[in-house]
């Protein structure tokens, strides 16, 4: 478990002061895959580096498994860091070493005997599906393979926590998928808690159960992925949601709707989690007698559930439309009226 509370950090440079973190509080529970999403410069890199105190806060508290880290010296932090694995965007592997030698390093540093190291390396290589590359030099690997080595290295000392610093940002979409699947496997099979930072919505959508959205050094929204992205409150969160789900009426459809002069109302319906099972649209027609036209629909899997967005056009008497709206609200489906500009 990682508990950040009221963290502040300001970097002073010749260019001026940068407030990287402003009163940031966040708790990662055991078993979570917690994603921190934000654009570059939002402060998420600084935040993840606080979990193993690579970066020290100006004020605030950092507890890992209940132990306060902020007062500890670099020497005291060594055993703590050995229990927290870290994976990097640029992999940060030793190019002058083979795959096996890279994975072995943390164990070597911790003084583990060489037979034990060799056995563990074999096990890890199998886990990340790189058994045939043990004696290959890292410089000969592809990006995805390098990240697998980075992950195996991070797991070498069987950490309870894994920190991922933009672990998939340097990879192509397909490789990203395979690395995300691997992270999920680590979480499920090894029970490792994962804290990751990313600017890719795909990452949060695929594997995270909780998310925090960062902007200008602050966490502007946090909670379960379905809650935060199901009903985003901040503009930045909405922009991330838009990256994966179509929730606006496409221009071409807007043109047609405006041109036909039939009037009516356009409603945005958002089905999150359980509400997906409800036959809401069919019932709208039956209950209120309005004519329902689906302008646009979009479905995304998230947190092992789904989020669907329907853009409906309701045609009929004003009273019938009002009745339909009242019915929708009663079902618990999120409804929002859309006014075309």
């Amino acid at each position, binding site marked *: 478990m990682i508990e950040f509370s009221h963290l502040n950090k300001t970097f002073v440079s010749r260019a001026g002061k940068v407030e990287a973190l402003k009163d940031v509080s966040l708790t990662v529970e055991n078993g979570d895959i917690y994603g921190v999403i934000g654009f570059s410069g939002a402060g998420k890199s600084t935040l993840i580096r606080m979990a*193993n105190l*690579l970066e020290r806060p100006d004020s605030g508290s950092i507890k890992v498994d209940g132990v306060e880290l902020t007062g500890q010296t670099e*020497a005291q*932090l*060594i*055993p*703590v*860091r*050995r229990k*927290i*694995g*870290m994976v*990097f965007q*640029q992999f*940060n*592997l*030793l*190019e*002058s*070493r083979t795959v096996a030698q890279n994975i072995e*390093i*943390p164990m*070597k*540093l*911790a003084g583990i005997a060489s037979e034990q190291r060799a056995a563990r390396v074999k096990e890890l290589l199998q886990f990340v599906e790189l058994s045939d590359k043990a004696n290959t*030099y890292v*410089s000969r690997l592809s990006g995805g393979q390098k990240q697998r080595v980075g992950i195996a*290295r*991070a797991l070498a*000392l069987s950490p309870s926590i894994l*920190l991922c610093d933009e672990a998939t940002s340097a990879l192509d979409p397909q490789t990203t998928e395979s690395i995300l699947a691997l992270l999920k496997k680590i979480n499920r099979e090894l029970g490792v808690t994962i804290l990751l930072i990313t600017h890719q919505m795909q990452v949060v959508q695929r594997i995270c159960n909780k998310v925090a959205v960062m902007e200008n050094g602050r966490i502007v929204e946090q909670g379960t992925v379905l809650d935060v992205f199901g009903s985003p409150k901040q503009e930045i969160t909405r922009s991330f949601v838009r990256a994966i789900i179509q929730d606006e009426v496409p221009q071409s459809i807007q043109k047609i709707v405006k041109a036909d002069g039939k009037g009516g109302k356009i409603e945005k319906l958002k089905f999150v989690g359980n509400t997906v099972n409800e036959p809401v649209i069919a019932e709208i027609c039956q209950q209120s007698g309005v004519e329902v036209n689906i302008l646009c629909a979009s479905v995304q899997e998230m947190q092992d559930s789904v989020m669907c967005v329907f853009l409906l056009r309701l045609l009929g008497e004003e009273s019938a439309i009002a009745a339909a709206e009242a019915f929708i609200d009663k079902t618990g489906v999120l409804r929002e009226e859309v006014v075309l500009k």
Partner: protein
Amino acid sequence: MKQKIFGVTVAKLTASFGQTIYMVGLSLFFGAILGILLALVLVLCRKGGLKENRIVYGIVSTFVNIVRSVPFVILIVTIMPLTRAIMGTTIGSTAALVPLIFYISPYMARLVENSLLEVSDGIIEAARAMGATTFQTVWNFLLPEALGSIVLALTTGTIGLLGASAMAGYVGGGGIGDLALTYGYQKFNTPLMIFTVVILIIVVQLLQALGNGLSRCLREHN
């Protein structure tokens, strides 16, 4: 060994070669060790380094700059008391080692410093993240990753040392450079002078090729 080449005996020639190899070899060995140590101090203590320490960095950096700004011939004379204290004499190949090491260490330090700075900060961060001590970071991450580049730096340093060793003739150190100067130039023996210069050119070419080859080996890890 009465046979003569360009007016000097073969014995004299081989002796000169021997002196050059002796002076360059030993001062390279000690200069490289001292240079790498100084470079590590510079890299670790610099701003943002693992053991950031402005005072130590300032002192070492200034010392390196001062020694590097003294012309070698002047350096030989300046540190004669030190040479006498260490070697018991100020004359001969062995005595020349002291100023040579004194001269080459700061030079090596700067070259190796550049090599070490080429190692990405990410590698150092990874080392910290996995709980490496400073010594472990240097030994397992910094030096191995910079090795190819350090070899090139040492090659450049060795060639600089070869040039400096020519001036060791000033304190009776002998060597190929001294041969060119005293037997070639001062005795108007132009063929000998050209001969030794050609030999030096060949040696420098060989050294550079060796350094490049070794460095490439280390970088490409066949």
